[in-house]
């Protein structure tokens, strides 16, 4: 694209510059975490992380590592800004969302720093769109502090096993209950709706389960309205890891392969609604 990273005679250099040949590599991942209007973006030398939070109970993160981009340069250790994610997505998909074979939108992203707007330059078929999106002060975000030493139970599944279950969740139930145990029922998803309760069991020997590391029987409930948005990430992913810690905090990590076969991650963290931890 005929746009230089540093326009001649500009006041300050760009703190962040990034280029992508296919904007969908970014927009599809951002859609997977789009359940609130606002998101906080963190850019480091490793790549871009976009975080969305709701009600101080659920947090979603999309990671697009630097290698996915054709160019990714940051001038400070961490560049952070808050932005309207709905607006950002409308801009990234300005030429439409349908993916015709052979056509893609090229993207260049530039950010000068605190107080400056995020600049997007998008091009498809010789048509250029320039977007200037205002940024805001980043807000404090929750730190779920989910490290591997604190994990009590962990299951890795093929996403296709969960897709139907999540798409058909009984939304009249206020909660989704997740039971993970070294003994039967091993892994159970339950809802308690107007028509009654529904349980979906997965045996640890199931072909869909790639790894099963459950040390303790845990039953936790999570507000279904907070978990429902994760269905978008599940739909895009090929694998999902489900982890809980001693307090019943839930971590869902989705492995997503983009159109070029590159791997990206989206994770959802959720606080338990009620803590019914049964210890053996």
């Amino acid at each position, binding site marked *: 694209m005929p746009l230089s990273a540093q326009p001649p005679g500009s006041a300050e250099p760009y703190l962040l510059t990034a280029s992508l040949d296919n904007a969908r590599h970014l927009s599809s991942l951002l859609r997977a975490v789009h359940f609130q209007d606002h998101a906080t973006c963190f850019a480091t030398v490793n790549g871009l992380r976009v975080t969305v939070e709701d009600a101080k109970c659920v947090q979603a993160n999309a990671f697009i590592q630097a290698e996915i981009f054709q160019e990714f340069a940051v001038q400070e250790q961490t560049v952070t800004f808050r932005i*309207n994610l709905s*607006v950002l997505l409308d801009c990234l*998909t300005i030429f*439409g969302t349908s993916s015709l074979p052979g056509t893609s939108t090229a993207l260049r992203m530039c950010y000068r720093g605190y107080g400056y707007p995020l600049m997007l330059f998008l091009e*498809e*078929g010789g*048509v250029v*769109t320039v*977007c*200037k999106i205002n940024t805001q002060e980043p807000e404090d975000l929750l730190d779920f502090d989910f490290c591997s030493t604190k994990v009590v139970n962990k299951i890795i599944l093929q996403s296709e096993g969960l897709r139907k279950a999540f798409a058909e969740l009984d939304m009249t139930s206020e909660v989704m209950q997740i039971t993970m145990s070294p003994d039967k029922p091993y892994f159970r998803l339950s809802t308690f709706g107007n028509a009654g309760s529904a349980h979906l069991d997965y045996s640890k020997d199931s072909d869909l389960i790639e790894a099963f590391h459950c040390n303790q029987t845990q039953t936790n409930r999570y507000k279904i309205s907070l978990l429902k948005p994760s269905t978008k990430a599940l739909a895009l992913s090929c694998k999902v890891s489900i982890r809980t810690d001693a307090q019943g905090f839930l971590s869902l990590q989705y492995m997503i392969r983009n159109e070029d076969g590159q791997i990206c991650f989206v994770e959802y963290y959720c606080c338990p609604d009620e803590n019914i931890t049964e210890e053996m």
Partner: protein
Amino acid sequence: MRFRAKIVDLACLNHFSRVINTIAKLAKTCTLRLTVSKLYFILSDKVANGGVGMWCELNQGNFFDEFQMEGVDAEHNEIYLELMPENLSRALKTAQNANAVKMKLTNKHCPCLRVAVELPSLSSSSRIVTHDIPVGVIPRRLWNDFREPSVPDFDVSIYLPVLKTMKSVVDRMKNLSNSIMIEANLSGEMNLKIETDLVCVTTHFKDLGNPSWALEDGCQSSQDRDPESMAEARIDIRKLQQLLAGQQVNPTKALCNIVSKRVVHFILLHEDVSLQYFIPALT
């Protein structure tokens, strides 16, 4: 006053349905003018319509196998009707596989356009679905309100970009703003711009080409104009979106004339149909 018409050819019927669908997207109520050779769908640019004007012209011979029209009197051999195009569109939806569609102006209890759809049937007698579409007869003294709008004294005339791309961009911009700025120059460049507190988005189209309009005295009005200078108008984005959404088939020719800060005049030409649409600039 009499009107009877019949379409038998399925391709003509589908084509006619598509035209009516487009009109239905652009106007809730409009005027149908019938002459011996043409049909016109007209929306005059009154304040009640939001200042939007529409003039759509069809050659009846390209659509109808039979067409008989007798106007209000010999001197004024035309009929002007007020109707809701959505009603006609819905009636034609039942005619997708019809053997024939007949239209007739009737006045049993009140004036109606009776659309009789003859559907294929296994038995010897045919199945007919009849729709009575209420119409208002517009008296001759009001016909002056519905004259063809003249091409405005525009600043720039330019061919439109690929409508599919234009539609995608406008659809997204509609999420971000209520108004959109269209600007274009005589070097074939057009920009679509929105600007709000949250975001500014500009899409640049190049190499669109400018149609040449020959004036009566043989010269072109735009000869004195700086080719790089942009003519601009800010319009209601929903009206532009409606126009683009209604285009089900790619037109043979699509262009717009911009009168800076006053009006944007769109002309979309298909083989058998011409559509002109006027969107006023916002004050």
